[in-house]
């Protein structure tokens, strides 16, 4: 798996980001001949990419030039990684569960990503925020394979 999609930092592209994530995860699952757990694996990637892409859009710094968000899917053995990058200002990723009863409420997005993925790495590189989200697909082969 090695594919890249470049989208403008606008919310109307969210569904393109999420459908790409779902389908990339599905193709990866097929490549491993996975039989079980495919739905949950695809849903996790869809949701994780939905959260990161919408964060990138929400916190985009708008200027005259159009800003992009890039999503790259790559794999290594039974692990799929979605790498989401934007040119927003640096941020400190605080991953604690917000007080669920406090109003108005804090962000559940990063917390959710942490729950869904096996590994989440935030880096700042060349003026870009990178979020690398990796999940292992536990493969149960089809009977007879």
């Amino acid at each position, binding site marked *: 798996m090695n594919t890249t999609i470049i989208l403008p930092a606008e919310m109307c592209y969210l569904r393109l980001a999420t459908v790409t994530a779902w389908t990339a995860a599905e193709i990866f699952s097929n490549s491993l001949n996975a039989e079980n757990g495919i739905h949950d694996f695809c849903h996790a990637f869809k949701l994780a990419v939905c959260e990161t892409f919408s964060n990138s859009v929400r916190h985009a710094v708008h200027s005259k030039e159009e800003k992009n968000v890039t999503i790259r899917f790559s794999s290594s053995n039974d692990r799929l990684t979605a790498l989401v990058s934007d040119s927003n200002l640096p941020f400190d990723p605080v991953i604690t569960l917000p007080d669920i009863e406090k109003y108005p409420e804090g962000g559940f997005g990063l*917390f959710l990503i942490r729950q869904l993925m096996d590994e989440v790495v935030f880096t700042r590189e060349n003026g870009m925020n990178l979020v690398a989200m990796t999940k292992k697909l536990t493969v149960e082969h089809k009977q007879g394979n």
Partner: protein
Amino acid sequence: MIIRENTRDSVSTITLAGTLDALSAPELQSFSENSALSPNVVLDLSDVDFLDSSGLRVIRGMALKKRESGGDVILACMNDDVRKVFNNTQLVRLFHIYDDLDAAVTYAETNKKSI
């Protein structure tokens, strides 16, 4: 996102269909701000195929707002993907959740002012 509202046994039931994410969450937000609803509201999620934290945030906001005046938001019929979002964020603890719409409406009807 399709949002429909009707009243059953004097309980406002909001039926959502489609994807409730950062793109569509504002629609639910403005619907809830602009509708006259009963104190207890049932949210029928049976046709919601996908929920993200932005959708969750709006649902949570609706519930917290209702509670300020003694009401509540009762959730009904969420699919496994949607339930996962409630579980993973522990927001499942904040809600009365029913797999059956009638049961949710009955609960909302009988617990009118008791919360």
